[in-house]
């Protein structure tokens, strides 16, 4: 038995969890409560239900769930919560982190190896956290002749642009940050940012390999934007709207992939190319151009780019789900809550406090999120699998696919949707 990696034992695991809980409680009571008191003492608190929220009152509310719940519900309707937590960054980052972990384990299984194993005791579940800590603690090296402000800005811009995607995605009915009438156009607009950011990053590094990688990325992204946009036009023609929520609602009976499989395939391939994933990872081809436009990035700058690219992966998968797979639509599997929970509340054990309005989310919202997440994970799986199966393609073959084959197929898709529209099968007057 070696000291390096002791065998996993459930008892040790539970003990370590209990240890953590113990220290969290101790630290919170010793530091947290005085800190909250100090904060509440100095801050002007709002007026809620006609009475001023004094620190004393706030603390009593913290202890009284029936009075805390309205505050939480009010908070959940704010834009800040939406952007930071649920349909926004927190949810997306969680899915992206899960994607990285699943990618590593899945690829390892496909390649007959183990993958992350020791970190986190349970199948290496904390490996990602370890990698993140490593990236944060590493030194950031900037090339001497780089254009420093732009070089610094590029990773941040990349994450920002990737995060901007997330604001457009309707996760479940009503849960979308920016419910734009031109949602699809905004999506195209954000895609247009990435080539610019890539070229800025590669040019400002003032090095040969990033330059070649940046030029390749520019070629690839610009030429695959056209089939990407064209493949979505069929849906716009049939639904008559650019609003993503309305597109999802239009698929309540059947997803568009049934009528437009060609459009879905074109979009999927173009999506792989936009995401720079194998087999289209030419801008980062390590055997030709070191690491492409990422060559000079180090430390957390590289980490930010990776975070951005996985957010982008989630966003593209979500857009695919929204446009082709029916978004949140799915059979209702959540049982309806009993009516008395909502009106009268539930008894909370020995304290016997009645809390009305406990379910913070409606069953429709939970159901929609469930189906959306399941579908998104399925699409992500199909984005990940090619990495284990295909080699990298060459730039001229890539451009050939983009300009000759995919654009033609996208036009075929548009004609199919037009014929569906004018023959009256779908669209206004048809099945819709």
């Amino acid at each position, binding site marked *: 038995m070696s000291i390096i990696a002791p065998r996993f034992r459930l008892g040790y695991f539970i003990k370590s969890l209990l240890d953590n809980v113990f220290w969290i409680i101790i630290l919170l009571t010793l530091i947290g409560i005085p800190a909250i008191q100090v904060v509440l003492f100095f801050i002007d608190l709002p007026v809620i239900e006609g009475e001023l929220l004094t620190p004393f009152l706030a603390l009593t509310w913290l202890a009284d769930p029936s009075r805390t719940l309205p505050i939480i519900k009010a908070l959940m309707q704010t834009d800040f919560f939406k952007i930071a937590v649920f349909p926004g960054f927190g949810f997306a980052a969680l899915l992206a982190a899960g994607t990285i972990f699943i990618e590593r384990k899945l690829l390892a299984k496909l*390649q007959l190896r183990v993958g992350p194993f020791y970190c986190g005791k349970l199948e290496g579940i904390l490996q990602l956290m370890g990698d993140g800590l490593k990236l944060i603690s590493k030194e950031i090296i900037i090339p001497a002749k780089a254009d420093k402000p732009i070089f610094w800005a590029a990773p941040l811009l990349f994450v920002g642009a990737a995060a901007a995607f997330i604001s457009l995605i309707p996760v479940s009915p009503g849960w979308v940050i920016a419910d734009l009438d031109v949602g699809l156009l905004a999506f195209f607009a954000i895609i247009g940012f990435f080539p610019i950011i890539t070229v800025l990053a590669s040019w400002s590094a003032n090095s*040969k390999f990033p330059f070649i990688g940046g030029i390749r990325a520019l070629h690839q992204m610009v030429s695959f934007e056209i089939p990407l946009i064209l493949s979505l036009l069929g849906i716009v023609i049939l639904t008559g709207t650019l609003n993503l929520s309305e597109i999802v609602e239009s698929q309540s009976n059947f997803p568009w992939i049934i009528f437009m499989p060609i459009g879905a395939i074109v979009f999927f391939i173009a999506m792989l190319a936009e995401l720079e994933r194998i087999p289209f990872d030419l801008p980062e081809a390590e*055997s*030709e151009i*070191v690491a492409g436009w990422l060559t000079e990035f180090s430390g957390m700058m590289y980490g930010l780019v990776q975070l951005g690219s996985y957010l982008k992966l989630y966003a593209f998968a979500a857009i695919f789900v929204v446009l082709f797979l029916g978004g949140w639509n799915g059979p209702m599997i959540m049982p309806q809550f009993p009516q008395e929970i909502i009106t009268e509340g539930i008894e909370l054990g020995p304290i016997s406090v009645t809390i009305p309005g406990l379910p913070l989310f409606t069953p429709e919202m939970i159901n929609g999120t469930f189906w959306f997440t399941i579908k998104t994970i399925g699409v992500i799986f199909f984005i990940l699998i090619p990495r284990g199966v295909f080699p990298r393609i060459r730039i001229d073959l890539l451009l050939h696919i983009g300009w000759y084959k995919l654009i033609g197929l996208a036009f075929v898709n548009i004609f199919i949707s037009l014929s569906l529209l004018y023959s009256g099968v779908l669209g206004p007057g048809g099945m819709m």
Partner: protein
Amino acid sequence: MSELPPGIKLEKEDDKIMTLNVGPQHPGSGHMRIIVKIDGDYIVSCDPDPGYVHRGEEKMAEYRNYITNIPHLERPVIHDSCNILYPYCLGVEEILGLEVPERAKYIRVIASELNRCVYTLYWLAIYGIFLGHSTMFMWPTGDRELLIDLLEKLSGARVTHAYFIPGGVRNDMPANFEDVCIRQINYFEKRIKQYDSIFYSNPILKSRTIKTGVLAQQDAISLGATGSVLRASGVDFDVRKKEPYDVYDNLDFQSNTLKSGDSYARSKIPWLDMLESCRIIRNALEKIPKSGSVRVKLKPNPKAGNVETYKRVESGRGSLGMYIISNGKPEPYRVKISVGSFRNLICLPYLLKGEKLGNMPAVYWSLNYWPVEADR
């Protein structure tokens, strides 16, 4: 060599031409540097610069006697160490006049075929990862373990075996080695056949490697290419067939030849050779004498007269020759190692001229080049 596209002129020095140092820090070259000049995406000229792992094996061999030369002569290709010792042992046996026992000859063949597979899998792994196919990196490195395990049972070391010795092999096969070997070789053959659907039949790989870096038959001959590079161009030359050493003339096998001479053919020949090696090993295990000596007794410090010999074998990278000159002293007067990697290197500038930059790894690694061996 492929035709240049219209509008591209070669050998012009102006601002449009960018010089890339591919290596030694660049991940795409191994222990060497390729100075590549590109015009847009097209390679204008290419100048290989080996020598980063030059250790002077030939000079070192002049200071050690015929036996103590063995451990360091296998260092250039530790993955193929049996095959690089093979011509040395054959040569020393000739100049010392040793007669190798029959059983030792068969054991040598088995060990060298196992080692050829070990090398080829390592090379295939690198070829795969440099085409961006990460599964093709992991599968061969994993399956290599089966053969390394066999070689470890046989010789006692996993990589640097030091197993061959002038006059035979160091030790006999362990008990029930035959059964284990047959079992693992059968499984190994099943495994490498699965590479076909994911790698060799993969349409994306085919689109990248077919008609890439085509070496015509006449060019391959005049450039003096050898091994898989030569046989992919349609020249049927295998030292095991043409100049059989030890017991290769008793064994049933064929040398694989493909006509097209492109990167795909060059990568497929070693794979076909591995399947052939499995046949050879099974065949040799059938024909091996069940008992007998495996080693003739050597004097501790053997001396030879004024003779010279040139022996060659077919290694994983083609014909591997050793030129040994003796002048009556315990040490050889001169040992020249002529390796397939070094001979194939001359094809690189020839093939890369006018290719696209994206084809560089596909062409370079298809040459079956091992920088450490080429530098010696």
